[in-house]
Every structure is written in C-alpha cells, then in structure tokens.
C-alpha cells in the first residue's frame, strides 16, 4: 500500500459527494458543507500523493484487478499528481467563492441547488481525465466533465446563456466525435486502447497511418484546449456563464485538453514529426489571442482572449519538446490554472462592486476598494510575466528552451512569446487605467452602485443616463454586502497560491523538470503499467 494507491479516491470521492448533495437538494447549507468537505478531503489525498510521487515514481493502479492491457488503469506520475493538486485546490477555492456568493445574495433555494452536484461531477471528470491510462476511459472522463459543464454553462437558462450554451455544446460534441473516431481508427490499427500498450504497438504501425491518427487526436484535443484556429468558440461562450463557473472553466477545462495533448505528444507519438506545425500553431495562438483581447472592453471576454493567448505558451513548450521546454510547459500549466482562475474570480468581485464587467463603464475602483485593486493587480502582473512572479519564471524557462533549440523558427517563437507578454501587460494596463484608476465620473454611463457609495450617497444624482433597469441586479435588494468575506476570502487564497508558486519555484521547477524527463523517457510509464521488460 503506497500513497499512489489512493488514486481512485480522487475520482470516486467527488462522485459520492455529488450523490449526497443530490439527496440534499432542498438543504442548501448541508449541500455546501458536504461539497466543501468532499473537495477538501480529495485535495488532502492528492497532496499526499504529490508528496509521495517523486520518490515512488510512476505507479499504476489496476481497477477491478484486471491485468493491463485488458483492464482500465489509473496512472499516477509526477505530472498527473501535480495537475490533480493544482486543479483541486483551484476548484475548492471556486466552490467556496460560489457558496459565499449564494449566502451573500440570500438565494437559499432556487435552480442553483443543482450547482453543487454538477460541480462535483465536473471535478470527478477532470480528475479522471488527469489520471487515466486508457484512451477510451479518457474519452469517458472528457464526456463526464463536458456534460457537467453543459449544465453549468446554461445554469438558470436565461437567453444569453442558452445562446452561448448552444455554441459550446455543439463544438464540444463535434470534438468528442472526432476523438471517438480517432479511438476507433487507433483500435483498428493496433487492437488496443491502453495508452502504455499503444505506446509500444504504435511504433510498428505504418508512418503515414501514424500521422493520420496523431493529427486526429491533436485536432480533437486542440478544440478542447482552444488552440488558435480551433479557439473560436471559447470567447463566445465562456463570458456569459456565472462568474464562478467561468472561473473554473477557464482554469481547468482548457488545461485538460493541453494535458491530453502533452500525453499524445510524449507517450503515444514521440518524435518531432509535427513539431514545426505545433510551433506555428503556438505562435498564432499567442499573437491572435492577445490581439483579440486588445479589442475587448468587457472584462470577461478580455480574459477569455488572454486565456486563449496563453494556451499558446503551453503549446510552445510542448512543441520544443526538449526536457527544459516540456518542464517549463508543465510549470506554466500549473501557474496559468491558478492565475487565470483568480483573475476571473476578481472579475466577479468587480462586477459585484461596480455593477458591470464592462471596463468602459467602470472607474475609481482602486479608491473605492483598495483590496480589490491589490487582488486584481497581483495576478494581472503575474499573467503578464513581471519578474518576481511565477508567470515570468515560466516564460523564462520557455524562452531558454527556445534559445537552446536555436532554430530560426524557435527564435521567432521566442520573439512572439516576448511580444505576447508585452501585449498582455498593455491589456492589463488598459484595464487598470480604466476600471481602477480613473475617476468613477469619467466612466461612460457608470452603474449607480459605482457612484452611490462614494460619499454616503450624496452624489447619487450625478450619474447620467441611468434608467431603472440599469441599477443592476441589486435593485430593490437592500442591503447587499458588495464584497462579502466569503467571496474575497477564496480569491485572496488563490492570489496567495499564485504568489506561492513563485516562492516554491525551486522545488516546483525540479518537480516539473523531473516530470518532463519521465515523460520523455516513456519507459517508467510503460513499465509501471505493463510490467518491467514490456517495452521493446
């Protein structure tokens, strides 16, 4: 019995929690307690697994005692253990934030009672996708998390959410179909869906067939990861969902796609056959994404575009596919999950405090709420990659890997990475100047909430063009706590986690470097699943 044998619990516990919260549909307080407890225990188990991972090496858990390649295996290596811990920490913070939002607004009952079970199923699906060592089980994991995400995306069933939900569901289903077709073709070519077994058997498949299978999988995962030509759906659908839902989607769902791409590139189809293509795609993702962000004024859409843009950095590291490049990509994924989620959570707070997430209509938030200013400023600078922060360290590793590779395309990619970093800084500076620094009265058509509290309500009359419905969702709901501690608390926690990634950068970089080496070697993974001496 070693720590990695606990791996199935990371999937089973959230499912059990989901079942219990379903039974407690009418008791929202009990629901909150159950779901928060479940996720805390899951996180604890995963931390134990992560701490044990470097010494234990890659470990496979056989479900139901079936010997691979016939049964399903869960594989814990350093990469999957790290992803599990980061994803669970982030989802726990978002869950507390969402529960806090519910308590602050006093919606004790209503359709949101479905939120907790669905959210836990989403977490279970994400954990399953990170752990599984079986291609078809990966498909099932994707479907679990996607189906849960369809429900969360259309929560409440308002017209804008239904509109966004349709795009999202159709695109996701098409990508799942592509994945399923790829699985069928791979099974036809090799007669197995076990990933370690595939790693051995695919080598003897005809190279042209290999290329077809490889590209099919990459397109399917590329849609989920929102890599440039396939990223059109993301800024269209994410921003309309409730703030906590957008935050967890932005942090986790695209990264599951990136994780699957990493596994495909390192385990199933090693070698640099399509690395040039990946480099071009990474460059385009970074540049096009950030240019899109520059044009936006709605904060949630703007952040969705920066999300797409920064996926490019991870593909960058994957395309370099040296030990240092892959290690930096692993670190960057952990960094980006944390930072992007905290930015979306802060946006939710901004929307509460300022009445809108459109930065043209915001102003003076730094003065109205210095805490909000700090909470936005730290992750924003972190995302842009200002030196002491983890974003800088991740980008530095990527640039180092690019320079080390030394091909002309790698240098172009390095230049593109630096440019994207600068443009991210520009985007964040625009948000800062508008939403935080200028006087609220300079904002175009500001929400009354923004002006009302300036001087105990005496300047309410100065707002222009205000109609009844523009008083925001808090109209007639008095008194409302604008920034309850239950919402700022988890946000502070996540921002602090983002800072901790800087403080712990030494051990973390060692870990991600080892994880990269493990993945490039391939033998630890294959031997852990199939037994020693199986490869070759």
């Amino acid at each position, binding site marked *: 019995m070693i720590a990695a044998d606990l791996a199935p619990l990371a999937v089973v516990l959230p499912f059990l929690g989901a079942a219990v919260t379903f039974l407690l549909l009418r008791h929202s307080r009990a629901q909150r307690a159950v779901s928060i407890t479940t996720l805390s225990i899951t996180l604890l188990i995963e931390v134990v697994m992560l701490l044990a991972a470097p010494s234990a090496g890659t470990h496979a858990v056989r479900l139901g005692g079936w010997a691979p390649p016939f049964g399903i295996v869960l594989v814990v290596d350093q990469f999957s253990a790290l992803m599990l811990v980061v994803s669970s920490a982030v989802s726990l913070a978002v869950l507390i934030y969402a529960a806090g939002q519910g308590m602050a607004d006093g919606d004790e009952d209503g359709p949101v009672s479905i939120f907790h079970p669905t959210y836990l199923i989403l977490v279970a699906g994400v954990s399953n996708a990170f752990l599984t060592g079986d291609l078809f089980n990966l498909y099932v994991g994707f479907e679990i998390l996607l189906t849960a995400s369809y429900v969360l995306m259309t929560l409440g069933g308002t017209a804008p959410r239904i509109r966004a939900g349709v*795009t999202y569901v159709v695109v996701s289903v098409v990508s799942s179909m592509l994945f399923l077709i790829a699985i*069928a073709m791979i099974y036809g070519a090799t007669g197995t869906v076990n990933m370690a077994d595939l790693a051995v058997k695919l080598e003897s498949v005809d190279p042209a067939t290999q290329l077809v299978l490889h590209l099919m999988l990459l397109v399917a995962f590329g849609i989920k990861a929102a890599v440039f030509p396939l990223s059109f759906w993301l800024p269209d659908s994410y921003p309309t969902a409730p703030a906590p839902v957008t935050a967890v989607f932005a942090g986790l769902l695209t990264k599951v796609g990136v994780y699957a791409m990493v596994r495909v590139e390192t385990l199933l189809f090693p070698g640099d056959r399509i690395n040039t293509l990946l480099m071009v795609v990474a460059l385009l993702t970074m540049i096009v994404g950030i240019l899109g962000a520059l044009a936006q004024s709605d904060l949630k859409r703007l952040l969705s575009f920066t999300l797409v843009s920064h996926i490019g950095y991870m593909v960058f590291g994957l395309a370099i596919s040296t030990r240092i490049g892959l290690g930096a990509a692993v670190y960057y994924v952990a960094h980006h999950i944390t930072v992007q989620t905290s930015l979306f959570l802060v946006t939710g707070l901004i929307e509460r405090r300022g009445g809108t997430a459109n930065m043209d209509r915001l102003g003076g938030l730094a003065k109205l709420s210095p805490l909000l200013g700090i909470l936005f400023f730290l992750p924003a600078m972190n995302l842009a990659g200002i030196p002491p922060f983890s974003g800088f360290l991740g980008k530095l590793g990527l640039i180092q890997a690019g320079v080390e590779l030394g091909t002309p395309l790698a240098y172009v990619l390095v230049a593109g990475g630096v440019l994207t970093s600068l443009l991210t800084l520009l985007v964040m500076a625009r948000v800062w100047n508008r939403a935080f620094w200028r006087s609220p009265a300079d904002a175009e058509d500001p929400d009354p909430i923004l002006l009302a509290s300036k001087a105990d309500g005496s300047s309410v009359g100065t707002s222009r063009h205000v109609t009844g419905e523009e008083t925001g969702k808090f109209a007639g709901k008095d008194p409302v706590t604008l920034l309850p501690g239950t919402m700022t608390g988890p946000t502070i926690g996540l921002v602090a986690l983002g800072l901790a990634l800087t403080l712990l950068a030494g051990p973390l970089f060692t870990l991600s470097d080892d994880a990269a080496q493990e993945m490039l070697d391939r033998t630890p993974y294959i031997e852990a699943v199939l037994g020693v001496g199986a490869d070759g």
Partner: protein
Amino acid sequence: MTVDITLIVLMAVFFAAGIYLLLERSLTRVLLGLILLGNGANILLLSMSGGGGKSPLYVSGTPAEDYTDSLPQALILTAIVITFAVTAFMLGIIYRSWVLGRQDDVQDDPEDRRVADQPSYDYEDDADIAADTTEFSDDGSAPEPAGTSASGGDRADRPEDTP
C-alpha cells in the same frame, strides 16, 4: 482484418449527411446532424471488430481467433449512452431557446457585433494628452481636474466632483 463494405458505405452516408446538417443554422437540424455523426462513429467502431460470421459467445472447442472481438461492442454501448444523454440535453436547450425567443436558429453573439462595430477611435486611449498632466502644481492655483483637460465638447456636461 476483414471489413464489411456495407457498414463502411453506411458510415460514409451517415457522416456526409451529418456534416451537411451540422452546417445548417436551424438548431433541430444541427441536433439531427450530431445524432447521425454519433451513429456513424459507432458504426466505425463496430466495423473495427472485424468481419461477420464469428462466434459472439463461448462455444467449447472453438479456437481463440474464431471469436468476434467484443471490446468494440462495449465501447459502442458506452458511446451510445453518452450520445443519448447529450441528445436529451440538446433537446432541452432547443426547447428552452424556442420558449424564450420563438426561434430555432443559431444566434449571433451581440457583444461580438458590438465590438466589431465600435470605431477605431477610442476616447480613453487616443484623445490628446494635455501638456501638463500633473495634478500637483507649484503656483498654488487650483489644479485642473483630471479628465477635463483632455475631454471633448461632449463631456463638458459632466458634473464637477468638487463640492
């Protein structure tokens, strides 16, 4: 491996019709397209278990290679259940869309249109900056309120912050 040509032709027809329907703007047709695509993928999976005529169940004395491969059938079952759930959810969304707006079409994103229509001139970014941007002046005169120095005529009606 032998493959049944009827299944392959059927799969091709399903895929072709599915993709055609998927490109329509009507949501119901998109849904039908998704169902056809899903069935096409399932047929593809099924045809990967080899040709017909093999033993599906245990018969004593049959050599191992004369049994049909049962794993693709297990995969199809899972895939069918998933497609079923997604279809049900899509129907729910389509119905909701019909209830809300009496429409069955894929809608444009209004925010997309707004961003596309906005002029390239941006007041906050592109307005002329006053020569002296500091609010702290040495000569003791009242500092010019930030913003008004750079504002155009349309913002002159803005009330002053000073009491």
